[in-house]
């Protein structure tokens, strides 16, 4: 029976778990959780009508957008943006298959390069959207996003490489995302390595906040200045895809931080799977809480301030952590 069904396992992984269906459920829950937290931090109620405690509000929003008319302005592309957005969703789902959340993870030596490549896809797609419609807001937003990309992606890359390099040197994980994820908790047991992990965790969270275009880095889609930046001219299903990609990026990257920096299921590494899943879920929700807390706490920076912050402080800090990780 198992042998007969075996070829269907990868299809199951892509379509159901941890692929499309599971990701959609997690995205809906995470968006609700984040909106609720953000609202509470601003002394509001947040979503509360649709579903118990407003839990189904994100789903209602997606369904509403999905069945709205897809308006394309003069000289704008109709299907190319949707195709690029679909590819980005695919890239993020592919990263999930490389993490321990997948029952049969895909991994090899140096596969971290593949993961990083796949994680850049959504950012470049979102930047391309602004250039695919003739709008001054879109072009300005995309330009800002590309400028920021050259700052925060460097920091994110350097930060993610710190646990990968440390685990490869001390635990023989061969620069694999999956193998580093299942062993990274051991790095916290050594005081010097723990310091490097704390520095990398800090820079990873700040750069992730910028990757998600949340405050103080919501510069590309600053609504008071350039309406919605690259997404100004998009509506209906394309806007639903854009919001979904944003939420998926948050989910996948928060999960990567949970596994690479926070040790995944540690300290219950030998416990049953359900107990490990609970620990990972709690750590994931804490990462989302921190991201929301930063978003609620600070005001937007100017583009020059943001890039200076990254190149002046974050790049040297993450570079220092990576160089030390290669030397100690």
């Amino acid at each position: 029976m198992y042998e007969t069904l075996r070829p269907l396992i990868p299809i199951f992984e892509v379509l159901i778990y941890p692929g499309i269906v599971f990701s959609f459920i997690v995205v809906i829950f995470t968006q609700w959780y984040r909106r609720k937290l953000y609202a509470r931090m601003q002394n509001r109620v947040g979503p509360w009508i649709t579903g118990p405690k407003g839990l189904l509000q994100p789903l209602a929003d997606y369904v509403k957008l999905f069945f709205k008319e897809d308006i394309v302005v003069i000289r704008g592309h109709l299907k190319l943006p949707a195709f690029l957005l679909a590819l980005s969703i695919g890239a993020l789902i592919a990263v999930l298959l490389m993490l321990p959340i997948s029952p049969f993870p895909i991994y090899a030596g140096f596969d971290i390069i593949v993961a990083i490549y796949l994680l850049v896809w959504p950012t470049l797609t979102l930047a391309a959207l602004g250039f695919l419609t003739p709008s001054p807001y879109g072009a300005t937003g995309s330009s800002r996003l590309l400028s920021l990309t050259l700052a925060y992606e460097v920091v994110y890359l350097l930060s993610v490489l710190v646990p990968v390099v440390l685990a490869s040197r001390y635990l023989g994980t061969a620069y694999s995302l999956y193998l580093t994820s299942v062993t990274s908790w051991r790095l916290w047991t050594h005081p010097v390595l723990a310091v490097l992990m704390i520095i990398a965790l800090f820079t990873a969270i700040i750069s992730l906040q910028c990757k998600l275009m949340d405050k103080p880095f919501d510069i590309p889609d600053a609504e008071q200045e350039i309406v919605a930046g690259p997404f100004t001219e998009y509506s209906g299903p394309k806007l639903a895809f854009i919001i979904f990609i944003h939420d998926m990026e948050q989910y996948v990257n928060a999960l990567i931080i949970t596994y690479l920096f926070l040790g995944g299921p540690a300290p219950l590494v030998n416990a049953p799977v359900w107990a490990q899943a609970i620990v990972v879920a709690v750590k994931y929700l804490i990462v989302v809480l921190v991201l929301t807390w930063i978003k609620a706490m600070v005001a937007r920076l100017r583009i020059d301030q943001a890039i200076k912050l990254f190149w002046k402080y974050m790049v040297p800090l993450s570079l220092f952590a990576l160089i030390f990780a290669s030397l100690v």
Partner: protein
Amino acid sequence: MMDLLLVIVLTSLAMVITSLVAYGLYLYSLSATKSIAKPTKEKTMIYACGEDIDEKTATVSDVNLYVTIWNEIFKPLYDMLRKRIHTGILNDWFFWMFLLLIIAYIVIVLLGGVGSV
């Protein structure tokens, strides 16, 4: 452990399958909303600051925007380098090039020379 090439093939396949599903959903949405969509001229016009503008005005030179941000941000750095290095005297230029060559040699020697690569 798998081969890295196999990882690339598998992740690409996963990406393609998911993309086809997502794109299929988009096409379904297009067909489902076709009957409710009413073609009007105003919907497809480009607006900026509440006024409709022609497409030529709406198109901003993206390259200029992109380069300007970086030029503005690193202006103090450019100014400093221009003042100290870009003096216009040929001898200064030779000095900097010679210095870079020495640094390159030192790095190569420290890494064990060209032959070891």
